[in-house]
Structures are given as C-alpha cells and as structure tokens.
C-alpha cells in the first residue's frame, strides 16, 4: 500500500501518512463495502490511490520534488516502467498492454501508476491535450476488448 501511494506522491513519509489515513477510511467504511463495486483488494487500493491523487492535484506535484529536473524525469519514467516490467510474464494485462502502441501504453501507465492528469500526460508525451485524451480513450477501449 505504501509503494502504491509512493508511486504517485514520491515522498515516503507522505506515502505513509496516506496509508495511515486510508486505514482509518477503510475501518470506518468497511461495513459499506459491497462486492458489486469490485473486489475488496481493489477497493482498498482505490482508497489509497484516490488519497494520493488528492495530494498531487492542483499543481502541488512540483512542490513534492526537490531534485533537479533531469533526475525527476528519469525517476518518473523509471517508476512507470518498473510497474509495467514487474507484471507477470504470463499476465493477461501485460500481454494486452504490450499490444498497445508504446506512447498510448505510456499514457495509460502515467495515469494509473503515476496519477498524472490529461494535461500533464499531454505535456510529457509532447502532444496536444485533445490527442492525449483520445489516445488514452482508445487505449482503454482496446485494453477492455483484449482482456474481455
């Protein structure tokens, strides 16, 4: 749970705070969990990710990174690539992600793993906002088809 938060907020102590708050939220809302919303595990990670996303929204992401720009860029790509690389060789998700064009795959991973917004992803990929949005939409549709 800490690592999932840390992929988004980068700072370890912030990630731990997020996990601490997540536990409380899980505890308080456990009785309202419904299996129709997805597995319990995905519910837990959703809580962690949403808390982490709240922290990096509103342009606060830059405040979290003290390193120089080059390190930050390297770090960001490393975190995203690492998450993908760690997927099991036999994993269907892996195969389906591999079936996407690399930039579109990167867009999906930047969003899910890194918690980046459409605007940030457009900037990172060097494409207009509209292009980033439609690339990701199409990638998500393809992913769903592939994994169905």
């Amino acid at each position, binding site marked *: 749970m800490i690592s999932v938060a840390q992929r988004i907020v980068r700072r370890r102590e912030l990630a731990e705070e997020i*996990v601490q708050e997540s536990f409380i939220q899980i505890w308080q809302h456990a009785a309202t969990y419904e299996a*129709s919303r997805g*597995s319990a595990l995905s519910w837990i990670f959703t809580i962690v990710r949403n808390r982490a996303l709240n922290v990096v929204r509103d342009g606060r992401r830059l405040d979290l990174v003290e390193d120089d720009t080059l390190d930050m860029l390297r770090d960001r790509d490393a975190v995203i690539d690492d998450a993908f690389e760690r997927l099991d060789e036999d994993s269907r998700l892996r195969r389906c992600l591999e079936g996407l064009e690399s930039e579109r795959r990167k867009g999906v991973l930047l969003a899910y793993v890194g918690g980046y917004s459409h605007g940030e992803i457009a900037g990172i990929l060097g494409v207009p906002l509209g292009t980033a949005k439609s690339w990701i939409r199409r990638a998500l549709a393809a992913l769903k088809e592939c994994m169905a």
Partner: protein
Amino acid sequence: MSEHDDIDVLASEYVLGLMSDADVADFEIRVSSDADTRRAVAGARERLLELDLTAPATPPREGLWDRIEEELDKPRPQIVNLSQRRLAAGATQSRQQRRSSFWSGFAAAAVAAILATSLAYVYLKPLQPRFIIVLLDDQAKPVSLVEAFEGQKIRVIPLDGVVVPSGKTLQVWTLPNKETGPVSMGIMDEAVEITLQGPSLPAPKPDQLYEITIEPEGGSPTGKPTGPILGKGFARMPQI
C-alpha cells in the same frame, strides 16, 4: 458507439483518475443508481489491479502502526449501510461486533493476503504478534488468520464461511522443521476466534508452515494430521 460515450471507457477513465471533478460528481451519481455502471467500474478496477499488486510490499517505518492503532482506537461513529444500522450506533459497538461486521464485508476477497496481513496486525492488543499467518484454501481464498505470539501462543481467527462439519474437530498444526513433522497447536470445535497454547517448541520462523485440518471429533487420533486441509499458510512479518 463512439469511445466518448462508451460506459467501459468512461468507467476506465474514472478509475484512472482522469475525470474532471464535475464529471466525477455526475458519474458517481450514476454509479450509485445504475448497476451496469457499477459493473463497468468494477471491471475497470479489476483489469488494472495487477499493476497495484506489483508495487513492492515494504515494512512500515517505526511508529506507523502505533499511530494507526491510536487513530483506530479513538471512539468514532461507524459508517454503516442501512441493513446493518441496527448493529452500530457508534462507540458502544463491541470490538467483536465491529470486527465481525468488518470481516463480513471482506468475506469475498479472493486474494486478500496483503490486506489480511496488515489489518490483522491491528487487533494485536495487548500483545504484539511476532508473525501473522494467512491460511488459504486450495482456491487461494483466505479461510483463517493466525497470530503467533511469544511462548507458542497463537490466536486463530476463522473468517466468515468457515464451518466445522458436525462430528468433526478443527486442529491447528505447525511445521517447525521437517524432522519433527507437523506438531499440533490445539483443537477447535467451533469456528470462532480462539487463543491456543501450543507445546514447547523453538520460536516460529519466517515462512514457517501453519495449517488447519478437519479431524475426527476430539482431534487426530494419531498425533499427526489425518484429515483434509482446511487451509494453510506461511508465517510472515506484517508488511504493508
């Protein structure tokens, strides 16, 4: 249908955190009122879940568990859904009741090892367990938690759905090493939480095997497991 309107794509964007706040508000109304939308969201979450599972489990740094426990012990109202309203009114709910309503929500969790490990740790008071063991059945579904404490004391917490067949007894075993073979830690006639005192043994080690078998009434007649395995697991230090 254009991708723009496709419910699965919308659900995926929502799960990816890409929706604007305004769209999220509208979408969540849709989620709570429409089963197809809920299904689409659940589907999108499950598709991507594996990425979260690749994140390495790391031991929390000093103090994090203490802070979590402190927070959880504060009396605070439990948020319950309508069907459980009669159970909870807030701080007066007993620990047992809170725990069972908590776990009943998680009974369906297929791969809950991470969660079970970390949350079981929260029920420690006053002793800190040295290890947590999540016992899984052959479908990899959790059937029981075991907390292993100092002095061969273990607390067994069977999860929802575990029943002891009539005329049978559950017996808990551990395997300190291959030479000794399985050693009985005690028996349970009912699937309720129980603390058992095992015999004198070396301290449990990481990855030590624990299992629960279904034995004839009164326990195994031979001193070794004779019945089918309800669930088994390996000792772990709690990690999140």
